[in-house]
């Protein structure tokens, strides 16, 4: 790990989709007008496929290297170097980021191709591919960034693209509201994530290793073992790593739609279906899983956080599955299914089965992308209809869609030997093997419900009689080749994609886990992953239990929705219909958040704005008024007192002068008499004074 192989091609993998996005955004409208949509397709898909080819070449090169040296670094330039935090714009490839890059560019490339057909009639074709390319770029930055801040750049970048693509059809306000919700809920998670990074950096700085470069954090993480959380000099007893990892997990619940921050994902289905497949199933929502797996050396150090992750994952897996049961929108079912399947991945990480979690991430990318694109194919054929109650019997009219959808359904249901069986069975087994019976039970029940809602969907959509309008029935057709071939490719991957990691009780063949081994090789992680039961007989027994539950789930769905021997309404009316109502309304979580957080907040903002313009500015204006009033007073004083005095003295002078003027008679005699009188008066006064 310490001596990366310096390479310069990783930047190309990242830059290609960025170039695609830049060209589309700057010149896309013009290109589309001048050369037609074909030019946009060529550009938009070409850059991602080229990135995929580069990734495959990198993979081939990587396998040739001994496992302990599988680490390539492409260092571009200095990002910033301030206050001890010295980060570069640099990308790295290790086995984990390699797997993710292959998924992002591979599955992503397929979905790009699918979009050619799906979005063909949309005027915003160039805009769509621009955002899809930008998303691929951001996701690659997230995966390949060599430090945690760069990872965060990708982390928020995919959030931006998700926002823009959910609200892609922006003329409908509901779509853009869903986009806003997604972005804002994600920011709540991001708040926890950035605080985690601040405290992690402060902690590392306090032990003399100021860094946030992921591989360096990995190297120094063990030294944090004894470090307690320190708040500006206040020493707490809580372990720093526990605090950091818990916050990081909260960040992951936002991006990866786990309890309590999953609420944005079902609404996100407002976006075009390829977006749901790419962003809200295969790649972006797995970012949280990737992050935990990436930082396994930290998470493994905190048993408490691991426990929280396992329980939250198990709970989400079960909880979301129950909501999926009552949905009638073909995409909403898959959305809750995604939330549930992500719960499985987190449960795997939480019990310490990192490789199983990443494995399920990969197989889920195959079969859930296939399911979403299949659903998209149906929606496309139905002229935009998404309500399963208006479908039915489509298997004859859309054979390719049906067969591939079926393959993916079997995969997600965990039927051997399909891909989902390999990964999901492994997770359920690892839960009990690592001593988490409660999590195991939740995952097991969840698995049964998963089969139920998936087959319910298959039966409602593809079996029985067509229940839509006459025009819809006339319009239904198989999708164009660009979409069909992609479905076939993903369907095939749903079948065979799991063969790279086979349960131990069947065969000893785990190249996937071996490939990832260097990533999960820190001492603490080793201790956790290697714990557990290693008996093949026990594993087989538990595998049988899981399989039984799967069969039961299928049987119930079959009886209800294909054979129609059981009436679903009878179950929905149980206990006065209350449980069904709660499930149908998604447990009123949205309403709860709206009442408890959003409305009070909006009220508070209005109250503050009132306070600002009436109280604070009121004081300012009052001060101004007081000054004006005082000036008026002083004006009065000035006028009546100061000026009055002046006038008074002037008047006095005039008055006195006026009176004295009468003395001035002009007659000499008068003056002489006056002088004489004055002299006599003076003499008289002197005589009196002497006496």
């Amino acid at each position, binding site marked *: 790990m310490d001596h990366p192989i310096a390479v310069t091609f990783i930047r190309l993998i990242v830059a290609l989709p960025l170039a695609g996005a830049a060209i589309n955004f700057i010149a896309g409208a013009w290109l589309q007008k001048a050369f037609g949509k074909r030019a946009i397709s060529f550009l938009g898909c070409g850059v991602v496929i080229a990135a995929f080819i580069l990734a495959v070449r990198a993979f081939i090169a990587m396998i040739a290297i001994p496992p302990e040296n599988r680490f390539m670094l492409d260092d571009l330039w200095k*990002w910033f170097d301030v206050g*001890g935090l010295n980060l570069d714009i640099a990308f790295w490839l290790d086995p984990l980021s390699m797997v993710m890059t292959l998924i992002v560019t591979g599955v992503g490339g397929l979905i790009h191709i699918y979009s050619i057909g799906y979005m063909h009639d949309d005027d915003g074709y160039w805009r769509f591919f621009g955002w899809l390319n930008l998303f691929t770029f951001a996701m690659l930055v997230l995966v390949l960034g060599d430090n945690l801040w760069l990872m965060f750049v990708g982390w928020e970048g995919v959030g931006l693209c998700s926002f823009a693509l959910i609200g892609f059809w*922006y003329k409908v306000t509901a779509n*853009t509201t869903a986009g806003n919700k997604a972005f804002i809920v994600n*920011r*709540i998670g991001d*708040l926890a994530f950035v605080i985690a990074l601040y405290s992690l950096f402060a902690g590392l700085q306090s032990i003399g290793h100021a860094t946030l470069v992921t591989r360096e954090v990995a190297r120094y993480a063990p030294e944090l073992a004894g470090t307690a959380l320190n*708040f500006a000099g206040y020493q707490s007893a809580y372990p720093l790593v526990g605090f950091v990892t818990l916050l990081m997990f909260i960040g992951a619940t936002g991006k990866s739609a786990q309890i309590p921050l999953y609420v944005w994902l079902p609404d996100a289905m407002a976006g075009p279906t390829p977006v749901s497949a790419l962003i809200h199933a295969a790649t972006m929502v797995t970012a949280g899983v990737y992050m935990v797996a990436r930082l396994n050396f930290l998470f493994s150090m905190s048993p408490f956080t691991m426990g929280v992750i396992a329980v939250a994952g198990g709970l989400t897996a079960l909880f979301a599955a129950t909501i999926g049961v009552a949905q009638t929108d073909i995409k909403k079912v898959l959305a809750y299914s995604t939330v549930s399947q992500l719960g499985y991945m987190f449960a795997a990480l939480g019990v310490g089965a990192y490789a199983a979690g990443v494995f399920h991430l990969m197989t889920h990318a195959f079969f859930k992308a296939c399911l979403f694109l299949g659903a998209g194919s149906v929606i496309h054929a139905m002229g935009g209809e998404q309500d399963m109650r208006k479908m039915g019997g489509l298997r004859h009219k859309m054979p390719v869609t049906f067969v591939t959808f079926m393959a993916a359904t079997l995969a997600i249901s965990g039927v051997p030997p399909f891909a989902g069986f390999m990964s999901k069975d492994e997770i359920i087994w690892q839960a009990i093997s690592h001593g988490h019976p409660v999590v195991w039970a939740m995952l097991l029940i969840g698995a049964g419900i998963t089969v139920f809602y998936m087959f319910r969907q298959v039966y409602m959509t593809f079996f029985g009689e067509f229940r839509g309008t006459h025009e819809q029935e006339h319009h239904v057709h198989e999708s164009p080749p660009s979409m069909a071939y992609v479905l076939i490719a993903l369907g095939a991957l749903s079948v065979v994609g799991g063969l790279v990691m086979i349960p131990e009780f069947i065969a000893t063949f785990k190249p996937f886990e071996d490939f990832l081994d260097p990533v999960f090789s820190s001492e603490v992680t080793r201790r956790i992953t290697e714990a557990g039961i290693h008996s093949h007989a026990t594993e087989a027994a538990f595998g049988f239990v899981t399989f039984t539950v799967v069969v039961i789930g299928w049987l119930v769905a079959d009886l209800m929705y294909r054979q129609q021997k059981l009436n679903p309404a009878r179950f929905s009316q149980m206990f006065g219909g209350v449980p069904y109502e709660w499930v149908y309304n998604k447990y009123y979580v949205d309403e709860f958040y709206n009442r408890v957080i959003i409305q009070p907040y909006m009220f508070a*903002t209005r109250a503050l704005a009132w306070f*600002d313009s009436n109280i604070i500015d009121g004081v300012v204006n009052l001060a101004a008024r007081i000054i004006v009033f005082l000036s008026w007073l002083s004006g009065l004083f000035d006028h009546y007192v100061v000026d009055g005095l002046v006038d008074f003295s002037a008047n006095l002078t005039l008055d006195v002068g006026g009176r004295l003027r009468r003395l001035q008679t002009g007659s000499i005699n008068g003056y002489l008499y006056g002088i004489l009188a004055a002299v006599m008066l003076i003499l008289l006064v002197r005589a009196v004074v002497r006496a």
Partner: protein
Amino acid sequence: MSHALTLITFVPIAGMVLILALPDSMKNASKWIAVAATIPQLLIAIHLYEYFDTTTSAVQFAEKVSWMPSYHISYFVGVDGISISMILLTALIMFISTFASFGINRAEKGYYAMLLMLDTGMMGVFVSLDFFLFYIFWEVMLLPMYFLIGIWGGPRREYAAIKFFLYTLLGSVLILLAMLGLYYYSATPTFDLTELAANSSHYSIGFQRIVWIALFIGFAIKIPAFPFHTWLPDAHVEAPTAISVILAGVLLKMGTYGILRVNFAVLPAATYQLAWLFLGVIGTINIVYGAMCAMAQTDYKKLIAYSSISHMGYVMLGMAAFTAAGINGAVLQMFNHGTITAMLFILVGVIYDRAHHREINGFGGLAQQMPIYTAITGFAFFAGMGLPGMSAFISEVLVLLGAWQTHPVMVVFGAATAILTAGYLLWTFQRIYLGPLNEKYKDFPDLSFREAFTLVPLGIIVLILGVYPHAILGLLNTSLVHLNQVVLSTSGAAVAMVR
């Protein structure tokens, strides 16, 4: 280039004289003279950037001439890491805002003359190293701003202008008193800020605290810090577009710059004691309060004005951190806020010029009619949200990362406001640009070339500083780390003096 700083400061005055000398028949030439005056300024700023020595915290490009020797006043200008980024910002924003002024069609000569006088005042503040000179430029700024709002503003322009004028005048008086206090009680009577800074330990801590608070209030009005901020929304709403751009882009930074240049450098011991309250707590209040008030606004421009208050709070919080990351982040945030808010106010102006109102709920669906305008607005909004990959992300992260070690609770509030910011900006974006097109606006033209020309360079800078913030941080770091050390080094001394 010798006398670079004198040139960069007084070139606009030359332009002003030319404009005033124009006969009325040629008044259309005044805008081009204004443009011609800002171009050399921008070129000199680039020259300074190129030749600025990043390895020293000492003053560079200094010019010192004795001016009023009997009062120890000199014409002393110079640049260091604290001011270099602000000089760049001023030159850039003035260049942009002359183009953004082309819509002015009333008394152009007076307008552009005032604009250039304002330019000199602002540039002068940033280059002055003599407190008296600083104060003179500070006052020179005030008058043209008053007339620019009061004559070329909106319907309530006179109220807004007088409010701005009186409020800032109050601040000026406090700064004047503080300046005289510093002068009379200095070791050797001087207005030289570098000398005052070197002898800062001469002042008793009690004296420092009084002067510090007087200066703080004077500067805080400009930032504007809570609760002295209410002049800002009024001034913005009434000011013409280009004046709002200058006001938010450059003028607000005067406050935080002044605190760094005078409070931090000259009164470090008081800074160490008081910053947590006056910069930390008030800064945090600014951040949260501004964002929440913005959410409730229905006037587009007022909303952006409150977002400015919120974003300037990060600058204050970063300054209160007393860490290298915090103070670097603070000054970088000053720069980034300048470019991003300038964009936002130009964007508001674009729609105001067409619709003649700014009622957020009165728009809708503009994206269909004005796609380029919408795209650039989206870009600027996400820049304002501190989206990673754009400039404000780096500065906000540095501020919060730096402050985390000293003020964790404030950081939690500051970081949580990122959610609130996303809330009001996205909601605004949705109401104005998305949804069905309001029929009233179906013949609005998209951005003109001139409008795009004022926005695109700023956008490019925002992007570049997101992936290569080192371009600015490299300039700041040495001086700011030094300044931070000066403040920190007083901690022991300050405690001793209190006892």
